[in-house]
């Protein structure tokens, strides 16, 4: 067994970290949050040039051929930097679906441009009527002479405003299980209404008003959407968990720094036992989440049959640890922890959103308990 990073991985992590520290400070991030797009296309382009978008894509599609461990390392850094650009939507959700189920033509059309930063994507799965179920399909597709007609509304579509292509789920000709479609965002009848999320990331309502799609737009087999969605969620969980681990590391460390500086009752907070123990508990929670994130990523990477159970356990632990660390970072910062001026608030909000993405702790704990060991 060898859990050490390779020399290349070390260098990569260092370079991402150094770049974000110097070019992506919180003040800059907050100016991006207030734009319509919610991130910077120039950054996205730069990240592509630095090899971040193509990191885990095959070399045949202009990628660097990295694996899921490489992607995890990147996302951990993205979480530390609260990076707004659409890595999760494009590389965490859509690319895995295309790699797994896409036709050669679809891979050709989308993967190279993603690797080179020419386009970004969004997964349009969520519907408002069934908030905890990403498999719901009130959206419908019907077969016609030219392909399909797509109608319906998707909610909370991450990167819905910025995406060049969408992957949407729909009931094809009344089927009970979903079929997936790849839709150009500029197709006639695609209406996008963007809004920010609590944590500053961009999302949108996406309406499909009788959008005409060619036969080549179907992703995977008819009725196979359910498994593809599960696959997307699995990769989504891996990516947000790595981000959460990064965010938790920043939070527990900055709370220790604050506790050492802040003096009340003539002593730094860090000298009070209750504070010391709380910070130690935060450190413990962080490490459990980090261990589970690494183990699960390794299992998925080697396509282990035990991966699915671990994914539920991971999302449960990340939700639990994120809530504990986020809440206590705020608590130990006192009133300062409640202000939007400090970075604590922004990491806390990001962890709150990650907890809600792909299901809260209760649901994953239940799935974990019921999964075959």
């Amino acid at each position, binding site marked *: 067994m060898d859990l050490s990073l390779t020399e290349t991985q070390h260098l990569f992590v260092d370079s991402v970290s150094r770049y974000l520290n110097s070019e992506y400070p919180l003040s800059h991030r907050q100016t991006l949050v207030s734009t319509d797009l919610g991130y910077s296309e120039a950054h996205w382009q730069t990240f592509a040039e630095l090899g971040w978008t193509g990191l885990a894509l095959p070399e045949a599609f202009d990628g660097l051929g990295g694996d899921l461990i490489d992607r995890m390392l990147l996302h951990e850094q993205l979480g530390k930097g609260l990076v707004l650009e659409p890595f999760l939507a494009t590389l965490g959700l859509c690319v895995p679906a295309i790699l797994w189920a896409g036709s050669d033509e679809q891979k050709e059309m989308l993967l190279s441009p993603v690797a080179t930063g020419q386009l970004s994507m969004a997964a349009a799965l969520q519907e408002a009527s069934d*908030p905890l179920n990403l498999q719901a399909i009130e959206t419908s597709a019907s077969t016609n002479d030219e392909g399909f007609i797509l109608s319906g509304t998707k909610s909370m579509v991450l990167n819905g405003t910025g995406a060049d292509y969408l992957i949407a789920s729909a009931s094809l000709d009344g089927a009970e299980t979903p079929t997936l479609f790849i839709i150009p965002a500029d197709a006639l009848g695609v209406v996008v209404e963007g809004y920010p999320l609590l944590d500053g990331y961009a999302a949108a309502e996406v309406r499909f008003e009788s959008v005409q799609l060619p036969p080549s737009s179907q992703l995977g087999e008819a009725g196979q959407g359910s498994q593809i969605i599960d696959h997307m969620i699995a990769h989504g969980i891996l990516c947000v968990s790595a981000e959460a681990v990064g965010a938790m590391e920043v939070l527990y460390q900055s709370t220790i720094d604050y506790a050492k500086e802040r003096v009340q009752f003539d002593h730094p907070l860090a000298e009070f036992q209750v504070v010391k123990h709380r910070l130690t508990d935060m450190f413990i929670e962080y490490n459990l989440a980090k261990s589970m994130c690494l183990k699960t990523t390794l299992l998925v990477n080697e396509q282990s049959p035990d991966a699915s159970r671990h994914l539920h356990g991971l999302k449960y632990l990340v939700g639990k640890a994120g809530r504990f660390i986020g809440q206590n970072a*705020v608590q130990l910062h006192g009133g300062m922890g409640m202000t*939007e001026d400090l970075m604590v608030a922004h990491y806390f909000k990001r962890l709150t959103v990650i907890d809600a993405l792909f299901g809260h702790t209760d649901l994953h704990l239940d799935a974990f308990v019921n999964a075959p060991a």
Partner: protein
Amino acid sequence: MDLSFSDADLAFQTKVRTFIDEHVPKGQALWTKRSEWFKALADQGGWDIPKWPVEFGGPGFTPTQRYIFDLEMAKQPTPPVLPFGVGMLAPILMQYGTKAQQDRFLPSIRDGSVNWCQGYSEPGAGSDLANLQTRAVLSDDGTHYVVNGQKIWTTLAHIAHWMFCLTRTDNSGAKQEGITFLLIPMDDPGIEVRPIITLGGSHSVNEVYLTDVVVPVEQRVGEEGKGWTYAKGLLSHERTGLAGIQNSVLALEKAKQNARSIPLGDGTLLDQPNFRSKVGALEAELLALEFTEIRTLAQVAAGGSPGPESSILKLKGTEIQQRISELNLEAGGLFGSAWGLHSPGPSFARGATQHYLGGRATTIYGGASEVQKDVIAKNVLGMG
């Protein structure tokens, strides 16, 4: 022992319920009927100021009547009273203020025409409040103070007409000594209020900067240097809050309704075993906390003082509030994070997230939970 109220108390409960049924503006915006509501309460003989003593116009409730009154009021969405004047400053003025100060300030506190804010916390004086450094210097002729310094976390300072303020007049002794309680008008040119935007983007707290603010000695409450004693009494007022528990009982019912509206599998989120366990745990703890409050009440009603168990009400009560807010957060799913002008998904979702974020402050303000546990360990349990 007997669990039930006396006949007289039951009759009082009926009276309060009847009054609420007649006067709570059903289906109307509470704030539009606000003044009518408070007038009707006043017409009952001081029901608008249930905690004030009879000599200041209060209703003279027995402890049990007070409990019943708070209980019934908390069950309805009645217009809220801003606590700073009626609940926090008024008791201090009644106990330590001059007759002139009482005549000048109490009427406008009662009718709500003047808003007050509390100028206590400072950047270096949070949990350690006695460390405050805002200076008040008495003029040579002894007619006024000149105040300089900064307050922080001042709730609603931006709509307040006046601030009651702790200032330092003497640095020579222990830090609890040398603190003086002043009443300061917010329209003084030396006062600047800057908003603090808190988690989730709301504005209710502020920074207040005081630069050469002139305060006549007539606006000092009690003696110079005794402000800490007065404020400590006030903080214990702030820490009791019967309504908190009833609000939580209502909030938990609402949370169950919300969860029942969210489909999951063949049922709803409320059928989910882990979620259901959390709801059940909260219900059981609330029943116990409610009765802890009644134990306290029974002791006071019997002429005693509140027992040591009363000290846990705020601690446990705020923890329960936060846990209920997490249920709603979870029920809203990702929709609780939609932060645009119009929110998609369940109608309660966004408000639930705001409540969750804002509610983090309840274990910080009015004495952080960690500090309160120290106080209880020392003063109640006798551990150094």
